[in-house]
């Protein structure tokens, strides 16, 4: 493998790697010494350093990684928001309950779904789709949940009142999925 090929391979590896790519990762796969690899990476870093490129190579956490340029972040944030949310059925159902019944406590959610909601609530809080609004003034002072701005953004809602009215329909066929 010549130097040009080495650089091509490194580019490909950077593209595929979801974690920072370390020199050790690389030399496990190709039979080159560290210095050669390091040099090739440095050349690549220069090649990608053009400020107008969409991404560059960042040296991070002991490795290397493609990162998008700051100057595009305004648009890229919108783009990230467009990514279809990967929410489980349980998460979607819980979100719906919270959206319509908020402010709502965990016990009420569990009453509707009939299953423990702890895991889903943590998950949704982690995704910033719901947040704790405070505590309810009843024995045990349970946490009260509500939806967030991010929730509205994700589902493309102007405000919480733009949620459609729930019908009590039962005639829709269950999709096999």
């Amino acid at each position: 493998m010549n130097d040009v090929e080495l650089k091509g391979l490194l580019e490909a590896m950077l593209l595929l790697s979801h974690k920072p790519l370390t020199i050790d990762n690389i030399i496990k796969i190709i039979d080159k010494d560290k210095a050669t690899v390091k040099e090739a990476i440095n050349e690549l870093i220069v090649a990608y350093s053009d400020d107008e490129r969409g991404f560059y190579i960042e040296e991070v956490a002991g490795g290397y990684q493609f990162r998008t340029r700051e100057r595009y972040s305004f648009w890229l944030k919108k783009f990230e928001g467009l990514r279809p949310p990967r929410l489980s059925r349980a998460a979607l159902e819980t979100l719906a309950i919270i959206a319509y019944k908020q402010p709502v406590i965990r016990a009420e959610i569990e009453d509707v779904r009939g299953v423990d909601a702890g895991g889903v609530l943590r998950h949704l809080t982690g995704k910033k789709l719901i947040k704790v609004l405070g505590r309810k003034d009843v024995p045990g002072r349970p946490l009260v949940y509500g939806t967030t701005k991010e929730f509205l953004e994700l589902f493309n809602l102007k405000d919480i009142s733009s949620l459609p009215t729930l019908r009590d329909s039962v005639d829709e066929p269950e999709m096999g999925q």
Partner: protein
Amino acid sequence: MSYKVKLDIFHGPLDLLLHLISKNEIDIYDIPVSIITEQYLEYLELMRSLNLDIAGEFLVMASTLMYIKSKMLLPPSEEADEEEEDPRADLVERLLEYKKFKEGAVWLNGQDILGQNTFARSALILDLEAKADERDKEETLSLENISVIELFEAFRTVFSKASQHKSMEISFSKLSVAERIQEVLEILKEKNNVEFDDFFIKPYDRSFVIITFVALLELIRLSMIKVYQSMPFGKILIMLRDVETEQ
């Protein structure tokens, strides 16, 4: 006999028929039904002797074939107009239809499949792999380069050559399938490639041949071995899955 192999690796009766047609170099529009039926039944018999689960579809096809055969033996009725339909017509149509989609599958397989030689940053490939659960293992078999039918064909040859002085009564007492699986694995660990026929040397009696073949089928089902064939009806090579060396 307790050892029962579930042959879900089969592609079905239509696949078998296409194979027989191709092997005999028969014109699909003019299938000699009696020859094909005979071979088809032989095949089922072979599967039975191996104690394989035979799917219902195979039996349905057997009766269809026998029905067509009987229809063809009847002298053409005098009253009926000349354009009396060929009793084979429906079957031929089904075979052609299936063959068409088989070719579609071959085309798909020849595509530059993402994850084979080109990769994307997408989570697609990783997702595919992550979902490789138990059922997946059952369905995704290692028959990349060969169809099970051809393996059976090879087995038939070996089996017919095996000494027949022993009665067809098969005694599994001398050597169990489990033991033979171990032996096969040992052999494959030692050598990289082993030709199919080489597993059937030495004692060469029918029970040994059957046990060996069932052992190989089981290893295929468990995705532990790969079966290769360089060309249609060519030599069959067997190798371990793990020690596969690239290029």
